[in-house]
Structure formats: C-alpha cells, structure tokens
C-alpha cells in the first residue's frame, strides 16, 4: 500500500516528463520500425549482391565502385540537380500568384480555387495531361507553335529537352502548392506594419522586399522544404510521361533505383540500395539544414 502511493507520487511528480514521452512513444516506435530500420537495412543491403530471392553475397563497396563508372547513374544524378534547381522556381512563381490573388474583388475565391486546382490532381493525371500537350503531332503545344510559324518539337522524345518538359509539368502543381502557402502567410501579415511602412513612403518593390517578405519568412521556409523534397522524390511524372526514356535520358535517382531493384528487368537489390543510399545522403544535406534552422528558430523563440 505504501509502495503504491509512493509509485503514484513518483508518476505524479514526473508527469510533466512522462506525459509527452508516452504520447511520443507510438510515433517513435513506428518511426523506428518503418523509417530508421529500413534506412539501416538499405545501407546493409547495398554491400551485397542479391537478386531478392537467392543467397546474398557480400561484395563490400563493389556496388558503389560500379556506380562511379555507370553512365546511367551519372545522368540520373545530373537530372536530380536539374530538378532541384528548376523546381525552386515554384517558390517565386507561387509568391507572385499569391500576391496577385490577395485582393478583395468579387469572385476572388473562385480564382483562388482555379489556381489551386492543379495541386489537387493526382501526379499521374498531371503527367498524362502534359504528355498529351507535348504529343509530337496532335499535341496542343505543337499546334500553337505551328500557328505562329515555328518548327514543331517533340519535347518528350528529345533527350536534351525531355527532362525540362517533365519539370515544367511538375512545376504546375508545385506552384499551386507554394501559392496556397503564401496566401495563408499573407493573411498573417500585420496591417499596422504595412500602414507604418506606407507612412514612411515605402511602396511597390521596397514595400514587398522590406516589409512583406520578412513577415512571410515562415511560409518561404515551408515552401522551400516541400519543394526540395518534391524535387528529390520526383518519380511518378517520369514514370508516366517517359518511363525514363528516351534511352534513359530522363531518369532521376529514385526512378533509377526502382528500375534496378524492382522493375521488370531489375532485381539487383544491392545495386538499387546503393543508389538509394546516395539519394539518402543527398537528402541528408537538406534534412540537416532544415533541422538546424528549425532548432535555431525554436531557440530564438524561447529566449
């Protein structure tokens, strides 16, 4: 009896620590089993040659040595860089549209929904619509080009253009996403500060740059995070629009990993894992940056 009350007291005394821990427990558990453990497993499998069925043979860093000389891997890596760089265009584009739509005129909700609409579509649908748009003979793009007297182009069939064509398709929903983030951000902009800025004679670009943008910093940060992640995990659009082709020119790391490990002609689990590890390390740079800047902000907020 005395021990029970003693325990009771201990729980009660430490409840400020215990409660969050208990709430965290299921999440941490799932995160460990479904995220952390598979990541470690990928590291492990990447050291083996394994077809997913038979015996796995340990080959050390053999898979990574092969990656260094693999031209398809090099192309995938470069395409990832292109995706990262160009996908970021969604942020200024989203900001621009958000500023444009942040007015009070009749029917603005309708316009906002129309601009947001592409983000609701499945990536597969976006991919299909854009591949019809790009079709070499029947496509709308070439109809427009030939109307204005230009030569027609086969965007998805041209190895130098195809990746850019897919990124353009990806930017459509991503811009809508960034727009909605900025629209919510703009709601939180302090009208008194704008008033104060106006009294001091700021308007146009100066107002945007010195008064509005600093207040949109949280929105920009989230937009940056989701865009970077979106760029690195680009897969569905590529699969739908070109299937990695023509001759492998639109592959990115995630698609190449899928091809090598899981697709019809693949089943090199070790090699696929090695690609996954490289992709993970690239992501880790960004994840590290995100975590660090969030930690910094939290610390600043507590002070």
């Amino acid at each position, binding site marked *: 009896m005395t021990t029970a009350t003693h325990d009771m007291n201990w729980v009660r005394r430490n409840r400020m620590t215990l409660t969050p821990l208990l709430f965290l427990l299921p999440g941490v558990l799932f995160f460990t089993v479904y995220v952390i453990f598979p990541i470690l497993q990928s590291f492990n499998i990447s050291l083996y040659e394994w077809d997913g*069925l038979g015996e796995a043979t340990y080959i050390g860093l053999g898979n990574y040595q092969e990656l260094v000389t693999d031209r398809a891997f090099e192309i995938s890596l470069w395409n990832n860089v292109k995706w990262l760089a160009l996908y970021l265009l969604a942020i200024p584009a989203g900001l621009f549209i958000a500023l444009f739509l942040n007015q009070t005129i009749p029917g603005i909700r309708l316009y906002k929904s129309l601009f947001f609409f592409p983000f609701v579509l499945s990536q597969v649908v976006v991919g299909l619509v854009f591949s019809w748009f790009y*079709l070499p003979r029947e496509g709308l793009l070439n109809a427009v080009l030939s109307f204005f007297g230009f030569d027609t182009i*086969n965007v998805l069939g041209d190895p130098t253009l195809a990746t850019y064509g897919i990124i353009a398709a990806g930017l459509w929903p991503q811009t809508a996403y960034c727009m909605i983030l900025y629209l919510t951000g703009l709601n939180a902009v302090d009208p008194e500060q704008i008033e104060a800025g106006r009294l001091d004679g700021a308007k146009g670009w100066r107002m945007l740059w010195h008064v509005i943008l600093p207040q949109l910093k949280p929105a920009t940060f989230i937009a940056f995070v989701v865009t970077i992640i979106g760029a690195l995990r680009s897969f569905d659009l590529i699969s739908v629009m070109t*299937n990695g082709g023509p001759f492998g020119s639109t592959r990115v790391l995630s698609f190449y990993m899928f*091809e090598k490990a899981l697709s*019809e*002609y*693949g089943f090199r689990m070790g090699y696929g894992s090695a690609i996954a590890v490289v992709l993970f390390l690239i992501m880790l740079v960004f994840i590290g940056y995100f975590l660090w800047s969030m930690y910094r902000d939290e610390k600043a907020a507590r002070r």
Partner: protein
Amino acid sequence: MLKSTKAAVATVAITAGLATSATAEDLSGTLRIMSDMSNPAPRAIMEGLAADFDAMHPGLTVELEVVDREAWKSQIRNALTANPPDVFNWYAANRMAPYVNAGLFEDITDMWDGGDLPGLDSVKGAMTIDGKQYGVPYTYYQWGIYYREDIFNELGLTEPATFDEEIANCQKIVDSGRKCYTIGSKFLWTAGGWFDYMNMRTNGFDFHMKLATGQAEWTSDEVRATFANWRKLIDMGAFIDDHQTYSWQEALPFFVNGEATAYLMGNFVVPHLREAGLTDDQIDFYQFPKIADVPMGEDAPTDTFHIASNAPNKAAARAFLQYVTSPDVQSKINGPDGLGQLPVNASASVADDEFIKQGFEMLSNNATGGIAQFFDRDFPAEMASVGMEGLQEFMVFPDNLEDILGRLESARQRIYK
C-alpha cells in the same frame, strides 16, 4: 444455359480422355490459380477455363485471381514467396531462369517423361533448364510483317522475299509520301523485335543465340553487319518519326490511317487492326525477308503455366496443366473466338483464320533456323534492358552506334560471369 455449358464441358472432357484420369484421382480441396491474362479476351478465356475445370471436378473448388499483365511481372516474386498459388502464368526460356534457380518453380520433369503431356514435344526445349522441365506452354504466336494489302496493290508491290526487294518496295512507299513501317518504341521491346530479325537474317539463328547467351561480342563484325543493314532502312526514312514517344498501341493509327504501310509485330496485333475497322482484304502478312543465305529463324514467344514449388494442392495443379494442354482445350482457347493464336499441342487443330494459318505454316515449314522466344526472353533480363535502350537510341540517332556497341559490350562482360 448453365446446363448446356456443363454438358459441353462434359463432352470436351470425355473426348479429351481426361474424365477417366480425373475421376480416378478424385481431386479435392481448393485450386488457386493466379493468371496474368488480364486483357478482355484472354481474361474471358481464363475465366472459362477455371469454370470448366471446376465443373469437371465436383470435389474441387477453383479460385481464380486475375492480375494485371504488366503488374504481374514484378508481383510474381512476392506472390511465389509469400502465399504461393498452385498454378500461375509466366513465360518460357530465360525469363523463368531466376525463379527456377531460386527453387520457386515446381520441377515437372516426371510429367513430361511419363507421357502425361502428349503432343508437346516440339515446345519442350523452351520449358527446359538444365535438362529438367518447369512448366507447360499454352499458346504461342508468330512474329512477322503485317502490311496494308490495299496500299501494296495500289502501288503495284508484291510481298518481298529478299531484303533487296524489301528495300525496293520501301523506296516506292517512301516516294509515295508514306512511311514503310510504324513502330512505337517508348517501352523499348518493339525495337528488340527489329533487332531479332535483322540479326537472325544477317547472321543466322545460331549466332543470335550465341549473342543471347553471352558467347558473342557486341562489337564483333557480325553485329556491325546487322546494324549496317538496319541502318539502310533508317537512312531511307522507312520508320515513322518520333516513334520513341509512342507505345506500340499508339503507333497503330499510322498503320490504320495508311500513313505507314507495315508493322513488324506479333500476331496479337491482328484483333486490334480488325477492331480499328480494317478488313482482311486490307491487311496481310509475310515472313521477314531473307537477307544473308542463312536458315531463317523466327520469333515465336511462348506463354506458359507453372506450378509453384510450395503449392498446397499439387495434384490438382498437375491435373490442370494436363487439362490446358490437351488437344481440345488447345484448339478451343487458341481459336478465333479465343486468343487467336497458335495451339502448342500438335494434335490440336489450327483455327480457320488467315493469319493463324499463315503463321502455323511459316513456323512449321519455313523456320528452318530455329524458333527464338524474343529479345527480352532470350537475353538475361539485365542485358535485355540495357540492350533495348541501346537499340532505341540507335533507331533515333544511328550515328551513336560506336558508343552504343561499346556500352553493350561492357554490359555483356559484366552480366555474363
């Protein structure tokens, strides 16, 4: 309705001589079939097969699960390891090697040796790995050049027998403002078909198989000769533009609209052409013409049924394999109302269809070199994927040949160890 089908099934069963063996075994329990026959016509056939087999065996429940054909190519691994069905579809030759080596396919050599599968001797080779058999074929189909007969007549052309005639024909077609061949190479394998034929005609079947098994070099003079022949067609503008953007179905309208006059394809293309409104007077078929003086080899991919090595009901599975390969069932499922392809049983009758008859004739009498499966079934999977990508690139940028061959040769040295 139900009664009449049951009666029909019974007659089929008795004529096939199966009723006796089946009742003797008294099959019971459940037979789980996983099939990739997901297109509408094959799906109906498979459902019919399952229902008929179910009706023949009162003590047996047949459960059929139809999986999307493309999806099955990657699902099969999980299906066979996690919860293996009794019977399932796959492909012959090298495509089954990884699973056979992993011990997932049941060895049914005893059925082949014991005379349970009469009439299948000609296709035994495609089911054999290391002297043992791992399944039964249920259908195969010829490849060849399907062409617009009406346009050939209009231009005064006849079916070519040699490559020179082919090129002469093609020149006239190009001069008339059309393309000679449609092709959609987005999913790569169609380019593999062209390579199979160019290589088998230039260097012969045996060399083609040496290349498939990794014993010949991609940078050899023979392979270069193949690509040089192929290039003649590419340079004269024989193929439609932008084919790397189209799937094989998306390339069909060029043929249907008469913008391209021929399609090198498997016989499964015929129903699509008929559905698109072409009559048999407008389409015809000829064997890929002779190039060098070598025995002609043909592509005739074989689709198959197998038993999982961990199957719960192997007795019923074996009876089903026997059933699907029996002459009557073969005639029925491969007939014009069914798959519209070639039956594998020598005692089965070939449907009264222009294309099936021509294909049967060609494969029985005019494929003296031998019968290949197809690029992505004869070559190991990884070589096939690297290879077909190179072939597609060659068809768009033939000048990259040196680079492509070098890449394929280094892939060969890595893959065949």
